[in-house]
């Protein structure tokens, strides 16, 4: 094992580019998952029967099948119906729609942990159900969900590595190319692992800061 004999001048920019792609992929996918996840949760908890069934079905479907399979269906399956995406976009859709299912579960848990009295009090002031959700339920649920959501973000970051299977040129992909070219799998993958680790640590740190800042004074949060 010798890191020094590797050609860092060419390797480093490639890894950096891969890292940036991984970060972009993760950020967009988690955001997509956030928006879709919230909608799924609201539909699940407050929708009429068909909407509830759809939202539950969505969550069960995406949690019950492998992520890689979902990526393959988006990337290799959909073109049969004339829907074609670049590897990057396909990866965003696959990861994002998958994460949405998990985020919906977390949001639902958070909302259900809020006392029913909060909704009753809001409605008794004359708030519509929608207003009560926006002003009372969601602000509390989003605070409660931060720890679980932090895990989801970190999972998404790490799972984004499977996007290399459909040819997205993210960090894993870059590592694989470099390793194969230099026949130095161990060292290169160790460096890639190190990069993932650093990114995860930095993100965790920021999320903990956010969690602290979002804490409601005096309130013991159970999570």
């Amino acid at each position, binding site marked *: 094992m010798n890191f020094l004999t590797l050609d860092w001048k060419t390797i480093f920019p490639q890894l950096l580019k891969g890292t940036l792609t991984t970060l972009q992929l993760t950020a967009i996918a988690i955001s997509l998952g956030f928006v879709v996840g919230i909608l799924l949760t609201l539909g699940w908890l407050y929708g009429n029967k068909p909407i509830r069934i759809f939202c539950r079905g969505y969550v069960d479907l995406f949690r019950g099948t492998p992520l890689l399979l979902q990526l393959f269906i988006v990337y290799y399956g959909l073109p049969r119906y004339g829907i074609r995406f670049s590897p990057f976009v396909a990866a965003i859709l696959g990861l994002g729609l998958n994460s949405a299912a998990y985020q919906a579960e977390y949001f639902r848990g958070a909302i259900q942990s809020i006392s029913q009295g909060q909704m*009753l009090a809001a409605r008794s002031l004359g708030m519509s159900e929608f207003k009560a959700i926006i002003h009372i339920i969601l602000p509390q649920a989003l605070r409660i969900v931060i720890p679980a959501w932090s895990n989801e973000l970190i999972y998404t970051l790490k799972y984004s590595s499977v996007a290399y299977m459909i040819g997205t040129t993210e960090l894993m992909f870059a590592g694989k190319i470099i390793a194969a070219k230099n026949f130095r799998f161990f060292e290169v993958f160790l460096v890639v692992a190190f990069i993932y680790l650093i990114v995860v640590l930095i993100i965790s740190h920021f999320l903990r800061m956010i969690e602290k800042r979002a804490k409601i004074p005096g309130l013991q949060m159970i999570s």
Partner: protein
Amino acid sequence: MEPIEKNVLLRVRHLSKSYNKEPVLKDISFKVKKGETKVIIGPSGTGKSTLLRCLNRLTRPDSGQIWLDGVEVTSSKTNINKIRQSIGMVFQDFNLFAHLTVLDNVRIGPTRVKKIPKREATELALDMLSRVGLVDKAGAYPAELSGGQQQRASIARTLAMRPKLMLFDEPTSALDPELIGEVLIVMKNLVKSGMTMVVVSHEMGFARSVCDEIIFVEKGVIVEQGPPDELFLRPKHRRTKEFLSKITELYGKSEG
């Protein structure tokens, strides 16, 4: 249309409600005049909370009508969110919005529901907080307050909507004994200020000193109603007498 009767603010007629075929309220009728305070008493599980929740339609009754100031609350054509703005409700466990400061709790109704400009709403909220003696806690969060303070804040939140009618569902029964007094004082001041109130409570000191009528409910029916002294001194029904002596024993006479 409802027959106009002078000064009647709330009229309840033949209200019935069942849960899973189990009747909880059976043909309840009563009225409350402007400025009156009625205290509802009755054993646990007898339908008192259900009755209050029907009044602002947090629960939908199966049959019967409720009229507030000439508007039929129970009509499906009535904009219930509009009606609820004029019916304040105070809960046993306060239900202050946990993520908002006391000031924001009181302000959120006026700003988000009534669309009052923020500055005006702040003034209004501070005014209400001073009525319940909590201006100095305006910046605190609910979890930082004692139960008595939380209940006073929740009363201020309700008052900020300028309701015509206020409903109280056992407002002091989640409180430590030494905190009950401060809430009862606020409620008595409301009575004096001319607020119309329907209060579910077993604080007989409060009932005897300020309420106009006690309504004794048992198993979903009104057994007896009348001025407190009449019920205490000359109850018509044996059950009324038994129940009153039981709660007097339980809660004491002098509190409040």
